[in-house]
């Protein structure tokens, strides 16, 4: 985590990945007033039409350019493609890991097979020159847009934010709040395990109180 300068605020977000999840995150970030760039594995030309139609307001760029200009990067690529990603592209950056590892659904990825580390800890280990925060992974992409509520709404839903770097997690929490969810900060990437597939929060659309109850219940039974 050397050399990462956590920005004082976030204005430019780069979304890496234009599959199921990336475009939804790009859209809700644009709605929240962020400047959004999108990149996939290929050239921006291949992505231009998708960006114009599905993420109007976002800019299709090469991954390196999008990353260089961003205050915050969201990783939304299939996890089995992660090992092919050049960590150098993300060096010095605040990175939100929105990916999930669930072998029964997506296949076994050797790098993520161990039980002792959470998937985001493994991502952090690979991206040794970035600061990784786990978030935006736990609500299904098809619910992410409709689930947004303005701050203070009684039926506002919560999204977990787990990070080893408290300042980074706090900043990501502010982004989550601006997008339309209550951020629930978890103290470490290891604690972010609770947000993973198979955990009590994954795939659930929960209010803050329900979310906190699920964390508490899991902690008691752990």
């Amino acid at each position: 985590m050397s050399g990462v300068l956590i920005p004082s605020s976030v204005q430019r977000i780069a979304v890496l990945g234009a599959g199921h999840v990336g475009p939804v995150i790009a859209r809700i970030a644009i709605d929240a007033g962020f400047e959004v760039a999108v990149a996939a594995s290929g050239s921006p030309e291949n992505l231009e039409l998708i960006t114009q139609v599905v993420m109007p307001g976002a800019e299709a760029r090469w991954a390196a350019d999008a990353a260089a200009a961003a205050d915050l990067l969201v990783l939304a690529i299939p996890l089995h493609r992660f090992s092919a990603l050049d960590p150098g592209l993300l060096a010095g950056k605040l990175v939100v890991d929105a990916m999930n590892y669930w072998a029964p659904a997506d296949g076994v990825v050797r790098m993520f097979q161990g039980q002792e580390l959470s998937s985001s800890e493994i991502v952090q280990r690979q991206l040794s020159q970035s600061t990784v925060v786990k978030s935006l992974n736990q609500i299904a992409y098809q619910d992410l847009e409709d689930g947004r509520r303005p701050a203070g709404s009684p039926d506002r839903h919560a999204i977990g934010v787990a990070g080893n770097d408290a300042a980074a997690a706090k900043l990501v929490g502010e982004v989550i709040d601006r997008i339309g969810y209550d951020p629930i900060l978890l103290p470490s990437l290891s604690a972010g395990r609770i947000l993973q597939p198979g955990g009590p929060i994954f795939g659930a659309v929960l209010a803050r109180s329900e979310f906190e109850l699920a964390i508490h219940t899991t902690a008691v039974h752990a």
Partner: protein
Amino acid sequence: MTTSTTESPRESTGGSTRFPLVLGLDTFGDHEHDAVDRPLSHAQTIRNVVEEGVLAEQVGVDFFGIGEHHTDDFPMPAADVVLAAIAARTKRIHLGSAVTVLSSDDPVRVFQRFSTLNAISSGRAEVVLGRGSSIDSFPLFGYDLADYEDLFEEKVNLFAELLKGGPVTWQGNLRPSLNSLDVVPYAEAGPFPAWIGVGGSPQSVVRAAHYGFSLMLAIIGGSPARFRPFSRLFLQALEKFGREPLPIGVHSPGHVADTDEKALEEFWPRWLHIITKMSKVRGFAIPTMESFRFEVGPQGALFIGSPETVAQKIAANLKTLGANRFDLKFGMPGLSPDSLLKNIELYGTKVIPLVRELLAD
């Protein structure tokens, strides 16, 4: 760089209204239970699906689709064989897959099987190709889930070549090459309709347009309206690739009974059971009555209720999505044959005429 492309959604989605309205039914061969909730055999379930297809034609359904699955809940691995049995007993209804899991199949064999179905049915075969959101076929046939995207991309590419007819020359990485090989049976009258089922990836939409396949939007959760940009993307991608507009269809689960209450009452316990089971394997949340009610409501993806309720929802969503086809995925493991036959009858005799009326300007 064009900037006008995103500004007139209504105009551009209207493009697909030039295609006739098609209202179909899909099944996954959901394992049926008898009237006192005892599981029928897989064999009896498969024979019942044949009867369901025959009834679908009798009540005026345009299309009957069968989705490939490989589990005790959905014992339907050889959909094309079942479709052939239905073809032999029907005259008019179109018959196809919903979907064929092309990633773990051989495109040449898929092409041959559906060409054969097309021959048996005198030109009523269609194929809907998908990557398959259920993954059971991968370990069964020795494929690695990590190759999911590459397998689909390459096999769709070969399938598009096969549809052109004539000797095939093709080269890829994941399947042996073909060098000017004849693939029979020859088509009598051009290729059969081929669709790509898309779950939520815009890249899949562009891929369908690139190869000239029609687009089937599989909407199984959340708001159907969020797929509207995909219709626009499809039409604009077709234009970009110099192709004529192609049909757009919607596939969603549901259940029709005489009243809303009866439909919900029959469907909910079966839905809860199967989604709970899937949740354990796939790691997502178990549905609640609240989440179910949302999906059944106007913003959700389940088409459940009386004929009037379901017809209104279908018509509204076809308009929103600029689609000309709707296939209701009926059934759920555990439902009885009587309940399914009633669903088919109501869909054909009540829902379809109502949707046609609602969409006739």
